[in-house]
């Protein structure tokens, strides 16, 4: 599969803090990829940076993000970004209730998006808006156009967000924790809906998730992040069933399965960005840490069918690892 988007050595500073450290991954065309990690790992920041939604004052970006037919996203001027967003790139936000403007009706927000991005007439945009709302499973869609966001339930709000995001037929969709603000009963429905819609539109999708199990069930590929560094990346099933990186193994152990006696919470917490080790940032909590880990950053190298950045991987004999 050719890559739709190739992120190369993405590094991002906020002041003196290195929020993202040399992040690289490819998004396959028509495929789904999940960025997985704890909160603060930088997964949302990656999505926001790739959407061009960081302000200059907020952060400085190094590296490249090559989008097919467009080139390096980080060299785009503001006007070019405006043309790409909503048409080639789109985003679904964590809290749809907060991401829809409370002052405008649902219909108004979809119709204006359709008119701007697809150049439709008011009438055509209205008709298309009804179709879109129906396709994401909103009953009585024509009547809902006049509703304000606060008049809809959380699940309905997220469906509206999905309809808006897909209205411009984007090549790449970002879904930033699309279900974590929803009731558990709705979560699976919304996840299913996004996957179906993405497939129907032939789009690629980058999910931002904190749940490794959900990520490996839903996505083709997984990138495991810790404190702004890529720990392990590759095929979703492989990573979950047979992790090589101690951090992936730790995340896996946090998933509570039926029959498991007790959940053992991991020790320690993510170090502050002001006091990061120079090498592997997971070194301070890693059960497999070697003396060299904190000082020397392991490169992301192919091993057993995935990429892993570790001096002392799990399930590899000592002699081979060294």
């Amino acid at each position: 599969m050719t890559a739709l988007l190739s992120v190369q050595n993405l590094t991002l500073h906020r002041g003196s803090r290195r929020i993202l450290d040399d992040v690289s991954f490819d998004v396959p065309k028509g495929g789904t990829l999940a960025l997985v990690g704890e909160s603060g790992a930088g997964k949302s920041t990656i999505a926001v940076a790739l959407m061009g939604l960081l302000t200059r004052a907020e952060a400085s970006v190094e590296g490249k993000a090559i989008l097919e037919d467009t080139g390096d996203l980080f060299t785009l001027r503001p006007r070019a970004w405006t043309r790409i967003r909503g048409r080639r790139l789109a985003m679904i936000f964590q809290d749809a209730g907060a991401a829809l403007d409370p002052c405008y009706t649902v219909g108004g927000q979809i119709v204006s998006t359709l008119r701007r991005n697809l150049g439709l007439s008011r009438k055509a945009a209205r008709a298309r808006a009804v179709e879109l709302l129906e396709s994401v499973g909103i009953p009585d869609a024509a009547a809902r156009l006049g509703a304000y966001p606060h008049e809809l339930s959380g699940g309905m709000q997220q469906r509206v967000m999905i309809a808006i995001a897909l209205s411009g037929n984007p090549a790449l969709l970002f879904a930033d924790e699309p279900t974590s603000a929803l009731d558990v009963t709705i979560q699976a429905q919304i996840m299913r809906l996004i996957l179906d819609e993405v497939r129907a539109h032939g789009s690629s999708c980058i999910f931002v998730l904190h749940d490794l199990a959900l990520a490996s069930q839903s996505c083709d590929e997984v990138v495991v992040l810790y404190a702004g560094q890529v720990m392990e990346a590759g095929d979703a099933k492989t990573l979950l069933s047979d992790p090589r990186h101690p951090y992936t193994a730790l995340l896996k152990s946090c998933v509570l399965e039926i029959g498991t006696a007790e959940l053992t919470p991991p020790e320690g917490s993510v170090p502050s960005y002001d006091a990061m080790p120079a090498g592997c940032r997971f070194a301070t909590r890693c059960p497999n840490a070697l003396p060299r880990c904190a000082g020397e950053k392991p490169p992301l190298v192919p091993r057993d069918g995935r990429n892993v950045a570790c001096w002392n991987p799990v399930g590899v004999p000592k002699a081979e690892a060294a």
Partner: protein
Amino acid sequence: MFRFIAGKVFQTLFVLFLVSVASFTLLKLAPGDPIEIALGNEYSEEAHQDMLAELGLDRPVVEQYVTWLADFVRGDWGTSYTARADIFTYAFVEALPVTLTLAVFALGLAILIGVPLGVLSAVKKDTLWDAGSAAFALTGTAFPSFFLGIVLIWVFGVKFAMFPVMGFVAPWEDFWGGLYHMVLPAFTLSTYFMAMIVRLTRANLVEALESPYIAAARARGEPGWRVVWVHGVRNILMPLVTIIGLQLGVLLQGAVLTETVFSLPGAGQMITNAVLNREYGIVQAGIMMTATLFVLVNLAVDLAYPILDPRLRPSR
């Protein structure tokens, strides 16, 4: 919706009743004898009694209040003791429109300049633009209006002779003439307000621009100006309108000084003179007009809330 409006109107009427009682009572308690002022130092006991009866001051206070209120509502506001002029004509027909014109122009100027400056400041946060507009706002707040008025008169009225420095031309008779005469007084009165609006707009907009719906609007490809004005500013109208409504009293206070500096025959000057002369009728008329205006503006603000924020509309 009807219940909401009716409730607000009822509240307003109740506040107006309290205001009328208060303004009536306060002036009854005020020291100084209006009859002495009207008749001079030497007068006969008979003339005193006649004057008391003529003015109804010999009646019980409650009756005086009811009579006064009934007359007031009918537009019979009595006669000025000293000027021997009809107070309704003097206060409502002549003085009030001058003050209203001044206030409307000042408010308009404050909004037209203050909001865009505040938006600029918020969008260009922590840049020279922001610092410049903060400096402007600080100067505007710190400068006393009587001093600014005098400076403006000297610079634009005397030195460059660009604008008239006194007198009032009704804009509904001669719009451009009225506007021309209002430039300096309206600017003088508006600076404090303008500064407040700049800071208010900036503070609220900076916060609003960090909201998820702003990121979402940008994410679906809306151009920057649209994101700021259509989504950002639309969402801060509520605090903006609230504060502007509440601060209108300050604007009316400022009108007194501005009218004095620019010799405008408005309600502010009228009330000042009436207090100095202990003219009950005029002071009462002034208080009632000002208070009514203030209360009506607040009613308008209350009624505007559901228009400004759909979440406050009664559910269908």
